[in-house]
C-alpha cells in the first residue's frame, strides 16, 4: 500500500481545560474522499486547522506527504488546500484578482488556462471581473473553493462545505468533489450531515468530543452493520442524533 498522504499521530489540542482533540491517530489514503463526521464542537475544524497550519497542536504530530507540517511547513502547505468553514472575502478585489493573489502567495503564476478552468468549474466565469463584495453567498463559497485550488493541491480539506448551502449547489459541489477525486486529488471533508458522508465519502471517520470513534470504508461499514443505516451507527457512537441535511 502506498504511503498515506496525511498521517496524524497522537494529535492533541487543549484550550485551557477544554480538550478539543484528545490524541487522534488517522491516516488519509491517496486519492480517497475521506468524510470526517461529527456533531458541532467535536473537533473537526481543530483537526483540519492543525494540518493546514492555522492552529498548533498541544501534542502529537501531523505529516503531509511524509513531512511534518510544522518543521516543513513550506513544503506541506504547497500541497494542501483549505476551504475554511467560515466564508471570507476581500471586498476590495474582484474574483480574478482574489484568485491571482492566492496563487501568488503559493509562488504560483496563475495561467489564463488554469484561471479559465477554475472559473468554469465553479461557475464563476460571468463574475470574473466582479468585486467579491457583489457576490451572493453561494458564489462566495465557490470562490473560496476556487482559491483553495489555485495551486493544484494534492490534498484538499473542505470544512463543512455545504453548511447552509441550497440543495442545488450542494449537488453541484458533490459532483465537483468527485471529479477532483477522479483526477487524483485526495479530499478530506468534514460534515455534520450524515447524508453527505454517505453520498460522498469512500471512507468515513466519526469523531466526537475530540476522539475518533470509528474509521471504516463506507461500503464495509454499510455491509457490517447488517442493513442498519449510518444514522443508527452514528447515534450509537455519538449518543445523539445530528440534524439531517435540510
Amino acid at each position, binding site marked *: 500500500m502506498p504511503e498515506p498522504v496525511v498521517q496524524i499521530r497522537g494529535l492533541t489540542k487543549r484550550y485551557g481545560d477544554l480538550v478539543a482533540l484528545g490524541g487522534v491517530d488517522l491516516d488519509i489514503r491517496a486519492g480517497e474522499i475521506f468524510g470526517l463526521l461529527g456533531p458541532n464542537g467535536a473537533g473537526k475544524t481543530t483537526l483540519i486547522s492543525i494540518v493546514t*497550519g492555522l*492552529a498548533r497542536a498541544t501534542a502529537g504530530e501531523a505529516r503531509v506527504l511524509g513531512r511534518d507540517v510544522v518543521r516543513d511547513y513550506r513544503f506541506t502547505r504547497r500541497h494542501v488546500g483549505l476551504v475554511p468553514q467560515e*466564508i471570507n472575502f476581500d471586498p476590495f*478585489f474582484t474574483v480574478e484578482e482574489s484568485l491571482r493573489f492566492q496563487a501568488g502567495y*503559493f509562488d504560483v503564476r496563475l495561467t489564463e488556462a488554469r484561471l479559465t478552468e477554475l472559473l468554469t468549474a465553479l461557475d464563476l466565469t460571468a463574475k470574473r471581473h466582479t468585486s467579491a463584495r457583489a457576490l451572493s453567498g453561494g458564489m462566495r463559497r465557490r470562490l473560496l473553493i476556487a482559491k483553495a485550488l489555485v495551486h493544484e493541491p494534492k490534498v484538499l480539506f473542505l470544512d463543512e462545505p455545504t453548511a447552509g448551502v441550497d440543495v442545488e449547489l450542494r449537488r453541484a459541489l458533490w459532483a465537483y468533489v468527485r471529479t477532483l477525486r477522479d483526477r487524483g486529488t485526495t479530499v478530506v471533508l468534514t460534515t455534520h450531515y450524515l447524508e453527505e458522508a454517505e453520498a460522498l465519502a469512500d471512507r468515513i471517520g466519526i469523531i466526537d468530543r475530540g476522539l475518533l470513534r470509528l474509521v471504516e470504508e463506507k461500503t464495509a461499514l454499510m455491509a457490517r452493520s447488517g442493513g442498519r443505516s449510518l444514522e443508527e451507527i452514528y447515534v450509537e457512537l455519538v449518543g445523539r442524533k445530528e440534524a439531517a441535511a435540510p
Partner: protein
Amino acid sequence: MISLGFRTLLSKEIRRFLRVPGQTLATPLLTTTLYFIVFGVSIGHQLREVGGVPYARFIVPGLVLMGVVQNAYLNSASSLFVMKLQGTIVDVLVSPLSYAEMLGAFVLAAVVRGLLVGGITWAVAGIFTGFEVAHPLLALAVVTLAAVAFAAGGVASAIWAQTFEQVNFFPTFFILPLTFLGGVFFSVRMLSPGLAAVARANPVFYMVDGLRFAVLGSSDASPWAGAGLVFLLAAGALTAAYMLLRSGWRLRG
C-alpha cells in the same frame, strides 16, 4: 531571493490603499495642508524666525514626519486588523509565506504609503517655502526608518487588537501626543527648562529634530541622536513584530 509570494502580498497591500486614494492619500494631504496654512502661514507671520529660519519653513520637517509615521502605522495596522476581522488572514496563514516575508510585505507597503504622504506634504509645503534640502540622503534615511518603526508597530498592534478601538489606541494616545509634543511646531529653545526636559524625553522629538537637521541644516540636539534613535526604534519594532508574528499569538489558535 525575493519570492513571488512576497511580491504578491506586497503588491496586494499597495493596491489596497491605492483603491481608496481619498482615504489614504487625499485626507492626509488635506490635513497637513491645513496644518501648514494655520500654523505656518497665518500664525507664522506673527512669529519671528526660529534659529534664523522662517517659522513656516521651520515646521515643514515635523509635518512631513507626522504624515509619514501616522500613515505608516495606520496602513499596516488597519490592513492586518481588517484581514483578521474578515478572516482573509487565513489565505496568508495557510500559504508557504514565511514570517519574514509576511512582515516584510506589510511593513514595506506601509512605508510606501508613509513616504507617499510625506512626499505630498513636502511638495505642498515646498510651494510655500521652497524645496531646498540640506542633506537629502539623511532626510530620506530618517523618514524611511521612522516609517519602518511605526509600520512594524502597526503590525504588532493589529495582532494584539481585538476591536477597532484598540487599533486606534496607539495613534490616539501615543502617536498624536508624542508628535505634537515632539517639537513639530516649536523649538525646545522656546520652552522653559522643565518643559524642554520633557520634550527631550520624547523619542519623536529626536526624529523630528533629526529630520529638521537633514532638511534645514540646523537642529536643537545632535542629528546623530535622532538618526541613531530612529534606527534603534526601527530595529526594535521589527524584532518585536517578528517575534509576535512567529509566536502565532492571536493569529494561529
